[in-house]
């Protein structure tokens, strides 16, 4: 079995600054991993690396079977990244934004409606320009994109930030649902309790490296192949692959 994410001593630079200073991390398929660490530790960069946005300078990185040293492009359709920026066009309506992102990923547009409903973007909100949305609504739209793209790997950077109580619960539900369908989730968050409750495992990132929790739960050491970490209600990966591309 190929793990969803497999990093070995991955270094990623921004100009001459090492964002990641040698990350080693394994994430099994279908696992929910919580990334914690101080500001500037490299959590966001780690997510960007896994999304195929940041280039890897040394070490190896294989995400969803794509070797990032060789090809970062074909990976991108299969991941959903919720970053600090929302990747939305201000002058397009909520619905248009989501439809564009879904079409671009060659995913099924049929899922857009459900995703928008799920995130409470209903009625007039759908035809509202993203530029005139509140920060929270914008965040929800960005989440709708991630959901509607039916990605195999979710990379969520502070998903709870800027959301109201209901929205936060919604994020939790979305993550649980996704994980039930076999989606792998990497979640960077400062809300330790909330995120830990969601995650199968917590990984600590400091100084551009993973200092704690490199391996999935129940796996002895690096390089050993094993089964998905024990997790209540975890699906078999074979199943996950089949279901993984549909959105409730």
């Amino acid at each position, binding site marked *: 079995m190929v793990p969803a994410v497999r990093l070995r001593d991955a270094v990623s630079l921004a100009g001459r600054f*090492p964002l990641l200073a040698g990350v080693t991390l394994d994430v099994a398929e279908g696992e929910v991993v919580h990334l914690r660490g101080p500001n500037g530790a490299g959590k966001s960069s780690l997510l960007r690396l896994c999304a195929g946005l940041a280039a890897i300078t040394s070490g190896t990185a294989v995400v969803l079977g794509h070797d990032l040293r060789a090809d970062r492009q074909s990976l991108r359709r299969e991941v959903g990244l919720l970053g600090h920026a929302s990747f939305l066009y201000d002058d397009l309506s909520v619905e248009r934004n989501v439809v564009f992102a879904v079409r671009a990923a060659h995913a099924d547009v049929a899922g857009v409606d459900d995703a928008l409903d799920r995130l409470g973007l209903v009625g007039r909100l759908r035809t509202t320009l993203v530029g005139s949305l509140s920060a929270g609504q914008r965040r929800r739209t960005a989440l709708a994109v991630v959901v509607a793209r039916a990605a195999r790997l979710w990379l969520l950077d502070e998903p709870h930030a800027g959301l109201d109580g209901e929205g936060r619960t919604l994020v939790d539900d979305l993550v649980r649902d996704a994980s039930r369908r076999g989606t792998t989730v990497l979640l960077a968050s400062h809300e330790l309790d909330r995120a830990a409750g969601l995650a199968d495992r917590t990984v600590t990132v400091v100084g551009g490296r993973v200092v704690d929790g490199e391996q999935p739960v129940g796996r002895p050491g690096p390089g050993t192949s094993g089964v998905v970490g024990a997790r209540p209600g975890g699906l078999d990966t074979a199943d996950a692959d089949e279901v993984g591309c549909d959105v409730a």
Partner: protein
Amino acid sequence: MSLTTTPTTRATAAAGAGRTGADRPGNGAPGARAAKVEGRRGRRRSDVALTAVGVCALVGVLVTVWLGLWVTPPDRFMGNLVRLLYIHPSIAWVMYICYGVAFLSSLAYLWPRTRSLRFDKLAGASSEVGVVFTGLTLVTGSIWGRPTWGTWWTWDPLLTTTALLFVLYLGYLAVRRIPGEPEVCAKRSAIAAIVAFVDVPICYFSVLWWKSLHQPPSIADPVTGKTYIHGSMAWTLLLSFVSFTLVYVWLVARRYRLFVLAEREGDEGLALALAERRAESREAQA
């Protein structure tokens, strides 16, 4: 369709990026010291060679000036003005070498098998020197044109294209200064160099037609002066070509070394930053 989508290209590109570090002495962990010593000796040898080229260039240019200003006779038609033709054509010639080298090394950088930051540095050095020589070509040509044609400037195809070359490559140098990681900048600049280079012939032929469709060329090409040259004049011209080419080699080598130093500085900064970051994480682990 694009370079990026072909996995093989990208794979080799990655492998290429993996070896770009190898052109610096002392790269690689084991035996770094030995490599460094060897590198130092190599540098000393190249220093000597560079100094030799510099001395030759200087002597060549001085002799050219001496021959050109004092020894050779004035031309039958152009009088003393012919003396400008001992430097102007050779400067223009060097300009073409500059852009030719910049273009070829940009191609070499983009070609996955020969990808190496050396070619990027060479392209950068050569084009910067090229811009200097283009400026000089324009200025010396203009100074020659004023008494000969009675005007500082004429919309001659060669002149117009040269002026466009000047601004095109100023733009290219600006692209080179966009910050980023070395490989990223190198690829971007290499593409920009090729995009700019392709424009040059199109420019030249457009301007040629532009002129020919409107008025017959009333002014002789500056190079036609060569037809009347013999004896000491020919030798002076030849010497001028050789010595300005040496000047080019020397300048490019010096500029190249500057790039190497800048790169080394960046590497040292990176090594420090990397060490600091790792210390941070080690502290957290402990």
